[in-house]
């Protein structure tokens, strides 16, 4: 049950093609001037790319559930840190 990773070269190459395509896309979009949207789009694409890497290259997709739970816990805690920090930054009495 531990060795259920698909050991199929084709899938990996397809994922890689997808990753390269997304890289091209994000560079192209950065060239347009989308102002505040730029960062959101760039982060969305980066998140998609890392999901691809994690799910296929790191085999999270075929791993047992406990690993997925771990990853979610780690990400939730990280997001908590960022969000709570920003409650300060956004509402802070302006510096001089």
């Amino acid at each position, binding site marked *: 049950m531990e060795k259920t990773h698909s050991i199929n070269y084709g899938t990996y190459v397809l994922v890689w093609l997808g990753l390269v395509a997304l890289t091209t896309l994000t560079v192209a979009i950065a060239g347009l001037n989308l102002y505040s949207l730029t960062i959101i789009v760039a982060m969305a694409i980066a998140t998609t790319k890392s999901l691809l890497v994690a799910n296929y290259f790191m085999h999270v997709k075929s791993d047992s559930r*406990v690993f997925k739970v771990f990853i979610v*816990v*780690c990400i939730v*805690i990280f997001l*908590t*840190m960022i969000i*709570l*920090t920003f*409650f*300060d*930054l*956004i*509402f*802070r*009495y302006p510096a001089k």
Partner: protein
Amino acid sequence: MNEVSYLKYEGKHNGLAGWLLSTDHKRIGVMYLAAMIVFFLTAVVFGLLMKFEMLTPGRTIMGPQTYNTLFTLHGVMMIFLFIIPGLPAIFGNFFLPIMLGAKDVAFPRINLLSWYFYIIGALMILASLLFGGGPIDTGWTFYVPYSLRTGTNVTFAVFAAFVLGFSSILTGLNFITTIHRMRAPGMNWFRMPLFAWGLYATAWIQLLATPILGITLLLIMLERIFGIGIFDPALGGDPLLYQHMFWIYSHPAVYIMILPAMGLVSEIIPTFSKKNIFGYGPIAMSSLAIAFVGYLVWGHHMFSTGISDTSRAIFSLLTFLVAIPSGVKVFNWVATLYKGSIDLRPPLLFVLIFIILFSIGGLTGLVLGSLNTDIHLTDTYFVVAHFHYVMFGGMGTLFFAALHYWFPKMFGKMYNEKIAAIGAWTFAIGFNVLYFPMFILGYLGMPRRYYDYLPEFRNLHVISTIGSWIMVTGIFIIVINLLKGFLKKEMITDINPWGGTTLEWTVPTPPPVENFDKIPVITRGPYERDEHK
């Protein structure tokens, strides 16, 4: 084949090398114990000297620079070398595998590596006293920009703390994997002893909070060496972001200290009241709840620093919520005593002292969590008293409880119980005489980290200093009594001197190298007793 105790075992290396190169979790635990007692007592001496300096306003025995250095070293050593690693590294290492029915932790070699990181980090802290600009004087919080401006040896000391972080992370990593992968057959999650639950929750904090401290300390070093500008306000950095980063780690670190201690209470009370724990589920779950909520409240260390009012309100609300699972635990412990058959032996005595001291610490935390009172009380002696009640009264008292509880199992020797009880009472009385006046001092407006003070505070400081002498006498009695027990010739062979129900009381005393001849199969909860069946 498995008759030799872990103390006597002779493998390829003997003598000292047999210890220093051993990957046996029990030997590593004992090595941590030996090292930590040395550092703990050193830091106690620093504290004693500080209290002596506070006997009179102005100079008593030392100058301000020495005093500033002393409280920094007292904090750094107590926190990074004793209370954070204390219970997991010593008793977690020694007993977690046995309690789970395993022969060792998941990664024994990483476990030994972790001990070496600890020792290297500790020696580096001591070494930082000797060269460079002299011993650090920043306080254990290393707040910027002072830590960037002072000429003392901050870079090196901070690197030492960074190395200690590695040790902590590796221990946490080891424990999580051990608990997931190495429980004996039949031991499902809810048949696990509560000490293991405490360690599990702690391990997650060690793993997911320590790296934040690591990177923050690294940035201080880089800032001092290269001037990268990330924290230096002269170059555009924001000192408040430093404080955020520091407390994102350091608040959860409080729970690294206290969660295993709480787990230990849940071991000792059932043993000495001869009954099952009251509310196993709520206690186990509140460990995880505390671990998680612990990440949400770091801002309450910064209520007066100028963070936004919105975030102060949010952090204050969350802080009050974190009090609740701790309260639930205390109620459950007291309820466990109900209708028990209580045998007031030294370990239980320490635990009862813990419950009172920890409750005082926790309840005074409410005043500090509340916004307007915290503005007045933060950075005063009130805070100093509060965290000494929580940390020393909490983790420190339970360190003694754990020593007295597991001493016979670890060394196959017994200490004098009467003297242990005298030591415990002396410690408890001295503790309150030492720290309680600090609450009043703080309320009257005595700021912390003050070398000198106004004459009107004198009486309370004198009482507090006398308390420090009583408390240290208590610690002295406790340590000498244990040492005498350790040096005794006669061994005890009683497998289960207290009548405990967890697995460590089923293996020989002291435990053999491989813990179990045959891995046990678990069929019941950790605190269930035959007589109830």
